């Protein structure tokens, strides 16, 4: 149906993508180069819902036994929550299990979902659709993941957990096939990599067990799975979500999801509009990274989308308060790694792929996985071991839980959309009706980077600065004030052609990439760590602590 410019060579992102820098990411324990060293019982990488839930559950288990565990949580953001971003509508069940003594009203949620609606959009109209069963949200709560993370962080610290913000983990410390801990990034390097005035050497943190809770497209997680050749039925695939928070003049009283416009028919995705407060709304557009048009630009599509009457009526006269972006693992059941545990290591939350795309939920799975991991870790520590054999109890707990059974029910729903919106929609409806049984059987997918893109001229987009914003202005609203002279953190392929530069420029929501004539210009400090680049283009590595966005209520 759609022909590219000359039906020949399509642009395939994987061709220009460098491999994972394994030498950097996996280093033998004892390698020179660390400044401070710290030994812990348990090290958790990432202070998101999964990491903090694991820390809290571990601390509680130890306390109940009259024991004390040294638990450290490393977080690359300068303060808790600053790199966390989600819709979000939260299922409280995992919170209730983690805090059996608390009531729903004690949890850091905003308000219950009272009303909801799903719409199909065209450029000028919207049609109310019956809410698909997977999208029923009443009895759930609208929340800000930043607020959830800050709340969990306080609970963790009250229990004696050490939360270290501003410390990104750059490499796994390994001994044989054992994970022994991590090495953090250095601080205060100049653009050429040499130490500047604020220089601080990397730190080595070793622990009996390391829990990787890095979130979407976790770097160390990827390194571990590739290194240990842990298989999965399908590769993990991703969507990119770009989100804004607005203070509005007109109140919003319901949770809204939309499908259709402005996405092309062969592109998976949809939007959300949630009230944090009647006059404080979160809205975003989520798009599968297997999109076909080379110049598809999720940020620009979101800007365009806001002009639709459905959104405009709320946003007009209001103020953009925050902006951000993050990828979401979409592969579901078939993309889960065969095991999420090993010698000295467990993998939690989004990093493991515990996200259900049809219902847009991942936070409660993250928290639940954190609790299961904590139980398995605690039992292993008591038995005096960190071997994968005992930590595999974590996999057993997850596999027999609602996490996996939920993901199994919707195992092909997202994948069905690989056939396009209408056919996919029909398939998805059938799956819903049959509880996932029909059409059944695994749908195989390729990695996003292997999907060929068709050249399509980009539409010119001129932001008005009132309703729509340029990427550079959006990055300002993410709170990003990264040091300009920081060393470049993106690993770019060699001889990147003009087409690739064009592709990257549209792919990245933060204007890190620009096509400058025949060259690729890189504005690395703009990066908001969404990881889209790591999926489709130059590989992402962590920068010094505190770099990147400073989300407040995303």
């Amino acid at each position: 149906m759609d022909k590219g410019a000359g039906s020949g060579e399509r642009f395939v992102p994987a061709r220009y993508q460098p491999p994972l820098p394994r030498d950097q990411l996996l280093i033998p324990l004892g390698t020179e180069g660390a400044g401070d060293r710290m030994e812990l019982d348990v090290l958790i990488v990432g202070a998101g819902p999964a990491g903090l839930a694991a820390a809290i559950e571990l601390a509680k288990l130890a306390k109940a036994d009259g024991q004390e565990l040294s638990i450290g949580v490393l977080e690359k953001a300068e303060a808790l929550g600053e790199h966390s971003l989600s819709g979000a509508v939260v299922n409280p069940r995992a919170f209730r299990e983690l805090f059996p003594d608390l009531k729903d009203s004690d949890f850091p949620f905003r308000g219950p979902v009272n009303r909801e609606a799903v719409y199909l959009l065209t450029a000028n109209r919207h049609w109310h659709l019956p809410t698909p069963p997977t999208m029923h949200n009443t009895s759930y709560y609208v929340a800000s993941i930043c607020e959830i993370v800050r709340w969990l962080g306080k609970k963790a610290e009250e229990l004696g957990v050490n939360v270290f913000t501003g410390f990104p983990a750059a490499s796994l410390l390994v001994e044989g096939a054992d994970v022994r801990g991590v090495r953090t990034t250095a601080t205060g390097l100049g653009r050429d990599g040499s130490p500047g005035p604020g220089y601080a050497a990397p730190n080595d943190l070793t622990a009996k067990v390391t829990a990787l809770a890095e979130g979407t497209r976790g770097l160390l997680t990827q390194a571990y799975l590739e290194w240990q050749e842990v298989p999965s039925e399908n590769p993990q695939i991703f969507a990119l979500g770009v989100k804004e928070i607005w203070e509005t003049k007109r109140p919003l009283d319901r949770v809204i999801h939309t499908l259709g416009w402005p996405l092309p028919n062969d592109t998976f995705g949809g939007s959300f509009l949630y009230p944090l407060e009647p006059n404080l709304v979160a809205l975003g557009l989520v798009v599968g990274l297997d999109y076909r048009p080379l110049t598809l630009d999720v940020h620009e599509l979101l800007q365009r989308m806001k002009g639709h009457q459905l959104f405009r009526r709320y946003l007009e006269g209001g103020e953009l308060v925050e902006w951000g972006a993050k990828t979401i693992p979409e592969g579901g059941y078939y993309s889960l790694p065969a095991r999420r545990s090993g010698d000295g290591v467990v993998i939690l939350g989004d990093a493991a792929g515990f996200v259900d795309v049809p219902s847009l939920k991942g936070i409660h799975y993250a928290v639940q996985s954190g609790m299961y991991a904590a139980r398995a870790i605690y039992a292993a520590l008591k038995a005096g071991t960190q071997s994968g054999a005992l930590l595999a109890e974590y996999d057993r707990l997850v596999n027999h839980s609602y996490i996996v059974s939920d993901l199994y029910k919707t195992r092909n729903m997202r994948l069905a959309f690989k056939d396009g919106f209408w056919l996919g929609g029909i398939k998805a409806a059938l799956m819903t009706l049959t509880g996932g049984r029909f059409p059944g059987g695994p749908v195989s997918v390729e990695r996003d980077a292997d999907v060929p893109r068709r050249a399509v001229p980009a539409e010119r987009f001129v932001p008005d600065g009132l309703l729509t914003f340029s990427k550079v202005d959006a990055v300002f609203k993410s709170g990003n004030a990264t040091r300009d002279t920081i060393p470049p953190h993106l690993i770019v392929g060699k001889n990147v052609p003009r087409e690739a530069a064009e592709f990257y420029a549209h792919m990245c929501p933060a204007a890190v990439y620009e096509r400058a004539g025949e060259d690729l210009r890189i504005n690395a400090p703009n990066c908001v760590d969404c990881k889209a680049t790591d999926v489709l283009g130059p590989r992402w590595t962590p920068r010094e602590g505190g770099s990147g966005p400073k989300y407040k209520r995303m």
Partner: protein
Amino acid sequence: MSVVLAVCEQRDGVLRKVSREVVTGARRVADGLTGTVEALVLAAAPVKGTEELARFGADKIVTLTSAAFSRYAPEGFVQAIAARVKSGGYRVVLFAASATGKDLAPRVAARLGAGLAQDVTDLGVEGGALVATRPVYAGKALAKVKLTAQPGLVSLRPNVFTPVERPHPGTPETASVAVTAGRVVVKEIKPAPAGALDVAEATIVISGGRGLREPANFKLLEDLAAAFGGKAAVGASRAVVDAGWRAHADQVGQTGKTISPSLYFAVGISGAIQHLAGMRTSKVIVAINKDKDAPIFKVADYGIVGDLFEIVPKLTDEIKKLHG
């Protein structure tokens, strides 16, 4: 009869221009209180130029001399001023919120047990009380405060209280005072480091962005800066600093410097919010850009749409003519 004391500043025996602003502010307050203005100068010997303060509203111009006052001497100044305020029953004491004033005013306030509204941008009398406006949160908000105790102490932000001519007698009075030797001694004033004026110091800043096309073209802006005769500095947007064309010390913006010059030229700069964050409190903003839709024009007071390679040289020529 309310007396408003205007504490003026001198350096090397010459009255500093900011003194005119302090007297202007004092005159405004005195008129609101139906009172008089006394200008005060502390020096080792009579200071050149003090008589002009009469033009700006001083009823009396008092010079207090002491050998200790050849340079700023915090403890001696505090002693002398506090003693005068106490004995004279002054209603209001004004200072310039200069580097010296911001140092001196708090000490005098503490000595007198009085409150101090520091660095105000507006001052008036409402219902017989002194009311001041001060920028807070880096100018993102303005706080209005009432001084409820007497005397009320206020320091005025420089370059805000434009001197207004309101001639008054300006009767001169000189007296020598004895102050105890201070422990804090100003040994010398080193001149600012030689070389280009810092963007954060200059009263006029000319910034260039990607529109300049090449680093060599910044010469156009340097020529324009030179035409202003030493008062102007050349700044840069983040994009050109990133590209290595200009030093990071010249970068104006959120991750560079935040500046507040009297006159800011944005040349070939589109106007991203992170740049605006660094210069939006400039008194007057002029934008020169070939794109009439560039966001910078929304923030600029004056704009010229067109080719900067023609506009800037013409501007340089005209400025040179102005400065003779």
